[in-house]
């Protein structure tokens, strides 16, 4: 099934990759809002918010992008919520598009108001014309409404003293219906103008907030003519500086990538590994030279293929087989099954990509890269968000790659042991040049499910026979947890270890009271946790989702319920997690991943929670940030007596924080641990 030749992307008016991605994501966001507005009772008002993503799209891109998003969002909303959902998305796009365009032209609220009135009139006229043609449906609707009104009037008529009111109701409604086209246009003008103004307000506020949001996109489409031949590449004294910064992110670096060789590039965060990837993928260097025999051909057959860090974002198809061919020129024949077998995903071709683990997603991305028979394959920290098993599988796939294919492999990693399979290892340091003295993350072997040897504080969290099933009673019912018996004592440090899909996140949500288990009880100090939401703090893996205010001090004040004028409290909260008070005035979107996690913790800890649950606290952090965060947590547990439960697929560095380890497998605790506390 061929859609849009890649060549058309540039000279035709077709959407560019960034435009496509933004249209798709904003369409999904708008559709989600519309669906909630239609499906959830009394949430219809929420549909107004669906105008904001569409407005943002119209503000940033051309109209064609908005059109694509409207179609995509409309179809999704239709599939889930029927015609009502579809119309809600269309309305959101109509009104949101209007506000976005007014905003882009730099006009103010009065223009938006006039545009809203005009749009309302147009919409109303179209609606009235449609009803004029659909005479049978119109009669049915009007008859049905008249019946309801007349019925109410008939009841009122029986009540002594209310007869005139009943008569009024009946005749007034009949008069209104006589003038129905006027009524429809007027109500359309009123409601659309109102929604436009609310949308305008929300869009303005959100745009003001978004000023600090960094654009995290990395790859750019490279315009090139001539043959594609990215290797051998010779980099000589290459440096690169991002616009708006005052130091080189990379270099000077000299490096050769030969045909068919496997090079590992290592270095701490900030050493310029990713920048080097960008240069190899075609970005021109700031100084120095890069010699190649031909063009880089990013994503082209025989060109350069790149696999990046985030498993979920790499994969573009909803079905495994579709993802392998996604983006290939129409008409290209691909042996999907051979490629899937090579990366160890044979038999999964028909599976939904939504159900794959991080490691499987990354192997799928490698298969998609290999479908292009690239001359150069760049793997940029592809294991950093994957569990140990997934990491081993991925490395096994990468290690023999250069023998099986005519490709060079550049593997960027911050794990020492991963680099060992390469022909050659190159170390990058942050201050330019190549050195060998780099701090690397070690991977740790899984400890045995262990026994708590020390202290027997009073039990805080008690889970008895906890099980959870999603979608109970539907054909999609799936069991996430069963028969969990677990007691967490005061001052405990517990690591709940499990792979993707083992139910560990469900367990975390139940322990925090956010989810009520379908069977069993989860008690905090003897009463159900779900009645005391907030008493057990939880820090999610996606820290950004937990930070709602625009600035650090506002965020902490809001999360902890502090008065943000009282500076000393906020300084204290920041100090607890080892952050500089000066950070209080920093915008949230300027924080690093490690800082975001600490700010979340500062807000949570300032409320003195009974226990703290951390979901994958170390994922995506470099070695220094990991160590810093762990030091803070170990300190808090040891000195402040904080009870800590860590949910993770990783063990490294967690032994000190969590002396007790439990293994979760397929929704059940694998080995029954014995504790000194009150196990039942």
């Amino acid at each position, binding site marked *: *099934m061929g*859609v*849009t030749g*890649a060549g058309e992307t540039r000279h035709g*008016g077709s*959407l*560019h990759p960034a435009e*496509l*991605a*933004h249209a*798709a994501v*904003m369409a*999904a*966001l708008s559709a*989600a809002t519309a669906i909630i507005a239609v*499906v959830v*009772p009394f949430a219809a008002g929420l549909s107004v918010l669906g105008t904001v993503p569409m407005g*943002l799209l119209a503000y940033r891109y051309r109209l064609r992008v908005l059109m*694509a998003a409207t*179609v*995509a969002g409309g179809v*999704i909303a239709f599939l*889930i919520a029927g015609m009502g959902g579809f119309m809600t998305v269309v309305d959101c796009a109509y009104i949101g598009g209007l506000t976005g365009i007014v905003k882009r032209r730099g006009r103010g609220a009065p223009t938006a108001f006039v545009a809203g009135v005009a749009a309302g009139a147009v919409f109303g006229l179209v609606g009235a014309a449609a009803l004029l043609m*659909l005479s049978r449906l119109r009669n*049915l609707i009007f*008859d049905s409404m*008249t*019946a309801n*009104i007349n*019925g109410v009037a*008939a009841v009122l008529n029986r009540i002594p003293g209310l007869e005139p009111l009943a008569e009024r109701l009946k005749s007034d409604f009949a008069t209104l219906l006589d003038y129905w086209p006027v009524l429809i246009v007027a109500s359309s003008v009123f409601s659309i103008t109102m929604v436009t103004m609310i949308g305008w307000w*929300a869009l303005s*506020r959100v745009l003001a907030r978004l000023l600090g949001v960094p654009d995290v996109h990395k790859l750019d*489409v490279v315009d090139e003519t001539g043959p594609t031949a990215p290797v051998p590449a010779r980099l000589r004294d290459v440096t690169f500086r991002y616009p708006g910064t005052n130091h080189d992110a990379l270099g000077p670096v000299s490096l050769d990538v030969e045909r068919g060789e496997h090079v590992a590039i290592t270095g701490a965060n900030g050493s310029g590994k990713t920048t080097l990837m960008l240069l190899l*993928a075609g970005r021109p260097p700031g100084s120095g030279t890069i010699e190649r025999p031909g063009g880089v*051909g*990013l*994503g082209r057959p025989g060109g350069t293929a790149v696999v*990046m860090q985030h498993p979920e*974002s790499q994969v*573009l198809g909803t079905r495994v087989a579709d993802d392998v*061919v996604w*983006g*290939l020129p129409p008409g290209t024949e691909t042996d999907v099954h051979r490629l899937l077998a090579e990366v160890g995903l044979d038999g999964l071709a028909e599976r939904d990509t939504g159900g794959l683990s991080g490691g499987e997603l990354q192997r799928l991305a490698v298969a998609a890269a290999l479908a292009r028979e690239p001359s150069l394959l760049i793997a940029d920290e592809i294991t950093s968000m994957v569990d140990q098993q997934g990491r081993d599988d991925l490395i096994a796939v990468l290690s023999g790659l250069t023998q099986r294919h005519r490709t060079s492999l550049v593997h960027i990693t911050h794990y020492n042991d991963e680099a060992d399979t390469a022909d050659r290892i190159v170390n990058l340091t942050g201050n330019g040049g190549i050195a060998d003295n780099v701090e690397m993350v070690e991977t740790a072997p899984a400890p045995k499910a262990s026994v708590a040897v020390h202290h027997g504080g009073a039990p805080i969290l008690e889970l008895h026979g906890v099980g959870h099933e999603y979608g*109970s009673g*539907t*054909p999609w019912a799936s069991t996430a947890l069963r028969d969990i018996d677990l007691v967490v004592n005061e001052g405990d440090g517990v690591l709940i270890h499990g792979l993707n899909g083992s139910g560990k996140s469900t367990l975390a949500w139940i322990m*925090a009271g956010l989810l009520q*288990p*379908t069977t069993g009880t989860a008690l905090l100090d003897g009463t159900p946790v779900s009645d005391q939401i907030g008493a057990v*703090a939880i820090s*999610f893996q996606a820290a*950004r*989702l*937990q*930070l*709602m205010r*625009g600035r650090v001090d506002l965020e902490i004040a809001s999360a902890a319920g502090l008065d943000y004028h009282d500076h000393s409290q906020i300084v204290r909260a920041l100090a607890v997690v080892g952050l500089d008070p000066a950070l209080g005035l920093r915008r949230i979107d300027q924080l690093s991943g490690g800082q975001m996690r600490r700010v979340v913790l500062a807000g*949570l800890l300032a*409320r003195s929670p009974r226990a703290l649950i951390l979901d994958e606290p170390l994922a995506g952090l470099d070695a220094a940030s990991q160590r810093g965060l762990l030091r803070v947590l170990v300190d808090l547990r040891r000195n402040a007596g904080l009870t800590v439960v860590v949910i993770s697929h990783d063990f490294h560095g967690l032994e000190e924080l969590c002396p007790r380890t439990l293994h979760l497998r397929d929704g059940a605790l694998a080995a029954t641990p014995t504790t000194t506390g009150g196990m039942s």
Partner: protein
Amino acid sequence: MTAPAGRQRRPVVLLRPVPGRSVVHQLWAGTKLIVVAGIGALLTYYPGWIPIGLVAVLVLVTARLANVSRGALPSIPFWLWILVFLGCLTATFAGGSPEVTVGTVTVGLGGVLNFLRITVLSIVLLGLGALVSWTTNVAEIAPAVAKLGRPLRRLRVPVDDWAVALALALRAFPMLIDEFRILFAARRLRPRDEATSRRARRHRWAAEVVDLLAAAITVALRRADEMGDAITARGGAGQISTLPSRPKWPDAVAFAILLALCGLSVYIELFTPLSTS
């Protein structure tokens, strides 16, 4: 302390077909979309009892063929039943022909029949749409839309862009829903500051809405940037599916049924005394 499973509300399940490989599952996604569009048009033009009844029969038979159990339906909230009941009640008081006499009481059913007709019409249309999402793999939708829209290409409508955007939006949708869940959970974990005056409450509400929106959009933008990178890394848009997307002979049967149903309905509504619209 075991919560009985029956008391739990059945959720609205998003974009996941009912397990199985029935003949309905195997129909081309484009056929299903055309059938829904065709029947939608029929019922908006001729919302009579007989067309509604025929479509209801079609919905029930299709659901049976596709092995859709009653459990697939989300729980219907109690207040909705009350609303329908109240609507029926007031419409009954309005009277109107036909009239039914039971003993000494004569009730005019005209009003309530109209009310019931529009209620059943909405239910039938919702059911028809739900059948599409219960029997169609998400991955088949975008290629079908691309195929259906092919004639529009001649009018320079960018159908292919739309299909790619739709495929990507379907991929992003569940991820965004997950992020929404976390966002709302994080919101629930926070203390609610006490706002005393009405003005302060309104102010707080507005601030919260902007906070949630900004967080949701920030996350969405980040996701879009990464997705844009992934698209660039694959050299832009191109193929979106391995399987050919085209109708087969069961689809011809489905079209024949659609045509027969529409033809019969229009004939009855236009030329026979059975017409009710």
